[in-house]
Structure formats: C-alpha cells, structure tokens
C-alpha cells in the first residue's frame, strides 16, 4: 500500500513558485553528461578538469544507476592550480592516464572552476602534443562544459560535437548511416542497433555505451570496460550518407550532426525520440525511405501487437493525469506518447532552460483535451508545490521524483536517468514499438495496482 507522508512537513504552506534558489534540482551538471558520452567511445577514459570532488561525485551518481565500474579521472586542482592555471595538472593527468590505462582516447571535460579561471585547455593539449610528438598519443578530445552553462544534457551533446570535430574526416561518401540517439538507456542503444542491423543498414551509433556501461561479468578486472563506438568508426562518420539525431529541440543547434553536415555534407535529419507509435513510425519511415528497404516483418508485428495492447488497455488509462519530468526532449517524447494513449500529461517539467521546451512539448500533442502546464528551468520542489491540487494519478520519470509520488500517494513509473532506487535502470527499454510496449504494460499495471491497493475489496480479478 502506498502511504502518504505523515511526518511534519516544512513546505505545506509554500504556494509561491519561482524561488530564487533551486530546490531539489531536476538537472545535473554538464561534466556528468560529457563523461557518460565519452564512455560510449571505445577505449576512452573521461577526465574532468577541476577539483577531485567533481569526478568522484559524478562517478558515484553514475555508478548508482548503471551498477557498473566507471572510472572518471580528475586533474585534481589545488589552490596553486586555481591561481596559476591548471595546465601542469592537466598534463600530469594525461601522463598518468596513459601510463595506467593505455587509453585509445581521453575525453576531457572542463568544470566551472577551470572555466572560470580561464584555463586554455586547447593550448595545454597542443603543448602536450608538441612535447610528446615522438610518441604515439591517444586521441585527446576536449569538451567545454562549465556547469553554470546548461545541464548534463548540454554536456552530453557538447562532448559528442567535440568528438566528431576532433575525429571525423571527409572523403568519398559511403552508404552508411550515423545515428546520434542522445542520452538513452543501454538497452535503448542495443535495440536501436538491432533495428538498424535488421534493416541491413550499415551504421555508426554515437555514443554507444550499451556494453561499456552495461557489460557482462568479467573473468578479470578490465581497466576500461569493453565496447563503445570505435575511433575508426567515428573518423568515418564524416563520410557517411546521412545522420539521424533524436531530440526535436536540437534542431537549429550546433550539434555533432550539424557539424557533420556543414563540414562534410553529411545530410542530417532531426527526429523526436521514438517513443510511442507516432514517433516510432516516423523513425521507421525515415529508415525505409532513406534505405529504400522494407520495414522488417518483425517490427510490423511488434507494431501490430502494440496497437492490440493499446486497445486492450485503453480504459485503464484514458483521462488519467500524469506528471512527467526530466531532460527536455525526453519529456517531450513521453508527453507525445501519453497523448496518443489518452493520458493527460498535466505537468511537463524540466530543469533545463532550452527556451523552446513548451513549443517542443506542444508540437507532440494531438488529442489532449487541455493544455498542460509546461515548465522549464524548474525543480522538484516547485513541481510538488504546483501539482498538489492537480488531481494527479501517476508520476513518470527518474527515481528523483519518488518523494513526489509518495507525497501524492500515486505510483511512480520509473524511466530515464537516474534510477537510484531500483535495479536495472540501464536495462529499461523506452524506444521503438517494443520499448513502447514495455512502457505501456508498466503504466497500465501501475494504474491497476494503485486502484487495487486502494480498494477495500481486494479483487484478484480485474
């Protein structure tokens, strides 16, 4: 039985929104996103240029979700480095990383500290390359990710852009497809690769942490877990036929996809994250048109089963009201999906500040009988203050919204990142017909279960 909180509450009287401070942030800082993206490159070790705490906190946070070792090094600033610059630390860090890990690549992301003192990381890297010019060096990628500018998602995208800027090369075009799926689960990445393989489309997925952050049990300890997009494949991205990137709000931004288009003429297509039938249809349609190949029967069947399930379950969900939160494009994808099954995404929230969140969410709503409340640059405390009187039936998002669901006495359907209070967050499938099927079953069952728990009768036959 889900119980509502009975303890003394501090915030019962708070009704005003927009506190100057952020209370229970619905976002993380940019180096976290960059570090995850870098772990999606084969043999790449992330290095955070700043204080020791940044890398340790981020590791702890990421490990708690993926339940996998993730080594993130730190250049470990001291007071000296803060005054005289972090160049020496960065170079020592690269030396030590090369010695310990023999990495294929080092993915450097900067912190608020190194950005504020104005460290010229590009210069340091250049100097390092020059003073070690006789040695074979790992690829060194630098993403500028001060945490006062953007969230973990911007950090993620920035790392990807920096990666292709550093590595991609032009030349005669091949018939390959680049897919830049954004910050999805490891299971999502595996499924996307499966779809492209079933189509018979030669592809490069960037990043690909489907193995590095959700690997097998080992025979002996691995310095850097196996898997990831190879350096060679990233180099060849400049010669691909096209790039698909997921995330409607990326349109018009300077992303890895637009860089490849601008520099190498690799045509780019921006789609929504394929959650739900409508968005997945668009993805499959794009693959079909682009490749000239038929949609494999397996997926037509998955779609058919999903439609069948929608109909079987429609009465349990129609008119229910949900809160959804998380990264802007992920929330937009969830909103569009809830809309297509008849759930009202009554409150759509993100901690990010994209400036077009509302527009992105609204563009996916076709059936919703009311305009939902759509808040960007918000936080969990504001969400709770706002939603108490909204008649909410369900909360959907990362485990950080658990206290909202608990206060409201409604179920939380865990999706996205981070999932810190359950096992298998990295294996949640959100995308494609199959992912949607799993989400649909989970949502319907969560609503049925909530009703069952509330019932005095305790029916075992619904």
């Amino acid at each position, binding site marked *: 039985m889900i119980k509502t909180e009975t303890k*003394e509450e*501090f*915030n019962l*009287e708070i009704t005003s929104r927009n*506190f*100057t*401070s*952020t*209370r229970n*942030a619905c*976002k993380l*800082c940019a180096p976290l996103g960059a570090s995850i993206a870098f772990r999606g490159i084969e043999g790449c070790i992330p*290095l955070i240029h*700043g*204080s*020791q*705490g*940044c890398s*340790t*906190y*981020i*590791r*702890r946070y990421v*490990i708690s979700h993926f*339940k*996998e*070792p*993730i*080594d993130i*090094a*730190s*250049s*470990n*600033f*001291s*007071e000296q480095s*803060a005054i005289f610059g972090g160049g020496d630390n960065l170079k*020592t860090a*690269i030396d*030590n*990383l090369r*010695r*310990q890990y023999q990495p294929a690549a080092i993915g450097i992301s900067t912190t*608020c*500290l190194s950005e*504020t*003192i104005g460290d010229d990381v590009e210069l340091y890297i250049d100097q390092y390359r020059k003073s070690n010019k006789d040695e074979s060096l790992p690829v060194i990628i630098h993403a500028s990710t*001060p*945490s*006062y*500018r953007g969230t973990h998602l911007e950090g993620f995208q920035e790392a990807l852009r920096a990666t292709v800027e550093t590595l991609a090369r032009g030349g005669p075009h091949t018939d390959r497809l680049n897919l830049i799926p954004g910050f999805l689960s490891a299971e999502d990445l595996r499924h996307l690769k499966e779809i492209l393989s079933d189509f018979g489309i030669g592809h490069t997925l960037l990043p690909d942490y489907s193995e590095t952050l959700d690997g097998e*049990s*080992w*025979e*002996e*300890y691995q310095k850097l877990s196996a898997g990831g997009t190879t350096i060679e494949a990233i180099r060849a991205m400049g010669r691909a036929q096209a790039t698909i990137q997921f995330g409607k709000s990326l349109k018009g931004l300077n992303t890895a996809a637009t860089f490849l288009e601008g520099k190498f003429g690799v045509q780019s297509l921006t789609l929504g994250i394929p959650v739900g039938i409508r968005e997945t249809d668009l993805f499959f349609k794009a693959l079909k048109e682009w490749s000239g190949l038929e949609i494999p029967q397996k997926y037509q069947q998955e779609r058919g089963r999903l439609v069948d399930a929608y109909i079987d379950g429609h009465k349990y969900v129609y008119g229910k009201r949900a809160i959804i939160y998380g990264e802007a494009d992920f929330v937009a994808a969830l909103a569009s999906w809830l809309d297509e099954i008849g759930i009202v995404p009554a409150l759509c929230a993100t*901690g990010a500040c994209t400036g077009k969140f509302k527009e992105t969410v609204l563009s996916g709503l076709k059936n919703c009988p009311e305009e939902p409340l759509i808040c960007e640059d918000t936080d969990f*405390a504001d969400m709770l203050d706002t939603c108490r009187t909204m008649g909410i039936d369900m909360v959907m998002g990362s485990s*950080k919204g658990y*206290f909202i669901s608990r206060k409201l006495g409604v179920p939380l359907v865990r999706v996205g990142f981070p999932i810190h209070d359950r096992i298998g967050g990295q294996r949640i499938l959100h995308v494609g017909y199959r992912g949607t099927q799993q989400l649909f079953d989970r949502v319907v069952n969560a609503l049925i279960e909530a009703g069952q728990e509330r019932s005095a009768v305790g029916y075992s036959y619904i």
Partner: protein
Amino acid sequence: MIEILKDRKKQVFQKGAETGDRGIVCEKASLAGSVSQRACVFCGSRVVLYPIADALHLVHGPVGCAAYTWDIRGSLSSGPELHRLSFSTDLREKEVIFGGEKKLYAALTELIKAYAPKAAFVYATCIIGLIGDDVQAVCKKVQAEQGIPVIPVHSEGFRGTKKDGYKAACEALFRLVVEGGGQPGFPLSINILGDFNLAGETWMIKEYYRQMGIKVVSCITGDGRVDEIRESSRAGLNVVQCSGSMTQLAKMMEETYGLPFKRVSYFGIEDTAEALYSVARHFDDLQVMRKTEELVRSEVNRIYPEVQHYRKALEGKKAAIYVGGSFKAFSLVKALRHLGIQTAIVGSQTGNPEDYEYLKEICDAGTIIVDDTNPLELSRFMMEKDVDLLIGGVKERPIAYKMGAAFCDHNHERKTALAGFEGMLNFCREVYASIMSPVWQFSPARQRRATMEQTFSEEITKAMFST
C-alpha cells in the same frame, strides 16, 4: 599487469614484506589523473553538517554540488527533515560574471522565511572565491535581518582535501557551540560526536547511554538539532567517533571549555564494549559501571550465539577493506576476526601516519595497507589476495562484483545500522548473506580463481612493492 604509479608507491605497504619498516606516506593530495575514491573539501563539510535536520543547508555555486548531495545519506531524523532537501543558488553565467551575492542574499532570505530553520549553513563551492563573492558579509546581513545564525562554510573544493572540509565544518559547528557557552554543566553527561545516525545508529547508541545512566546532551551531528548543539558545552565529556572528522571540534571545545574528549568506535563487539566502558571509567561512578557491565554482558550474550553460527560458515575467508576514515578500518579488522575472516587488504582515503602504524600493528603479516587507492590498484590487490569480500562504499561495489567478490556497504549511504551490538549482528548477516549467495558459482572471475593455483607470481608482487 596493472602498475602502481611511481608517485604512489610509498602509499602502499605490505606487512612483513621486504619494504620493511618504512612508514606509509599519506595525507597528500591525490595524483592528477588517478581515479581517486576521494572527494573534495566541499564533500568533507557537507558530510559532517548534513544530518543537522532543522538547519537550512544552502550550497552556493553552480547546481552540481547540491544535486549530487541531495538526500544521499541514510541519516535519519526523529523530527524535521529539512536536511533531506537540496538547496542551491544554481549560479548561471551571468552571476559568474557579475557576482552571486545578490542571488545568495535573495535565496537565503526566501528560504529562511519559507522553511523557518533554526540556523543556516552556506557552503561556498569552487568558484565562489574566484568570482569574489563576500559570502561572510551576506551571511552577516541575513543573520541580522532574520535573527538566526547564518554560517558560511568555506568549502571550495580545490582548497585542500576532504579533511580540510571536516575542519571547515568543525569551525562552523563551533560557532553554534559558542553561542550557548558558559551555562552550568550537567552531571554524568556526554556529547556524541561523529555519529551520523545512519539507519538510526545514534538512537541505538543513545539508548545504551540511557541504560548506563548517562545523559546525552547533544548528538553532533546525527539526528542533530541546532539548539542541542548550542547546549553541548554543558556536557562533561565529548565521546568522539569518526575521529577524522570530529576530533577538531572536540579539541576546540577542550581548549575553550576544558571539556575532555575520548575517541571511540561503535563498530564491532570489542570496540562497542570498550567505548561504553571507557565512558563509564571516565565518570568513575559505581552505579554507572555496574549498569554498563550489565548492559554489555546481556548484549554480548544475546548476540554471540548468532555470530558463532555465521563464523562456522565464514571461517577462513579473506576480506579487503577500503573506507573513508581509518578508525572505522580498525574496528572492521577486529569485527571480521569474530567471523574468522582475515583482512588481506585494508586502506582508507584519509588516514594519518599514526592510523597506519596502528593498522600495521593489528593486521596479520602479508596484509596490504593502502592510502588513497584507486580502482585499478584495488582490483589488482584483490585478485592477488584472492579475497572473498570487499567492505567499502558505492564506488567500490561494482569493483567487488566484477571481481566475483561479496560486498558489504559500510558507507554513508547505507540503510542498515551497523553500529553497536545489534549493528554487529546486522553486519554479520550482511556479510554472510553476500558471501554465501549461490550466484558466485556463475561468476567468471570466481571460476577462474578457483581453477588457478597461483594467479600471480612472487616476482610480480615484489615488482609491485619495490620502491
């Protein structure tokens, strides 16, 4: 083979190895580029002050530091739970350029009005000093306007190590202590320092003292309250656990109020018993001593048969310990002995030379002692020593699991009480459940270890430790 970085070799020691009597090098900054398990100054401050449940904890800086420390500890409160919320000034580019004082002032004022805390701690993170915010002045102004202590905590991440963060926290706490200083003392009374009420541990320990007839004036900071801390100078003795973080405060109170302190540990049977006896001896009161003896006897009798039951299954197993503070490591070595488990590797993030000398004393020959280790080293040592169990925190857990070793979480995030006599039972149950699980039969690392007689040659070991 995984190499120990040259500059780290002196931070590793093997008891009885030819490297002999040299001391272990410690208390130095982590190497750039090593994947240290340590955090930063901010972490040290935050971790100590976190459990004060009726204070506002506002993290001044960009959002990360507050986001990563939101509700991450198992510190329970018997009343208010303001400590479980995460407040950040969430500085943006504009404030980094033009300064964050105005935002800090507005944030503090609003939050104090809304949540009515008994005090506010303002944590200055990395860039605050750089952009020149006068946090002290803002705090002073808000304190005058709002009528509660508003205390700056100087915890810029790069200004030292986690230990410097402890110091900053102790200085902040001392400001509250001084506010109530000079009041008459209580007889037979103590403060509990350095217990953070993870999974209700402070409550268990308080109950022991209640049974002994000792009054607990304040708990700093487990289930902590601002008013209680203000009263703390009225106690007759400071009983300090987690000495790395809290000895500083105890020393400040000793200097100012002549309040003596004792370092104790509540982990394991001997150390818990010794903690209670040492407090009883301090007060030299027959009644108290008699009650303490009764308490210890009945508790030991209660738990001992069950501990023996686990020992039968676990005798001869080998463990690695890697924890934040070395005092906890001492207790764990002893607690494991009760289970017949030998400590093959032991280390901490923040131990000092005396701590490591003591570890050398209590450990068996061959034990590897490490300061500020990293995943590569730790996994290498675990492989070499063929350990069955790792005791550590969240960051160490996947290392254990990938190595096919059992794991016991002994860090701030755990939700199981491991202190006191009851805690010893929980500890044994957790260790037993993890080691005895049938899932290890499928672990490739475990299978490999089972089939290989001697994974690594002595030469390799020698090479690792040659200095």
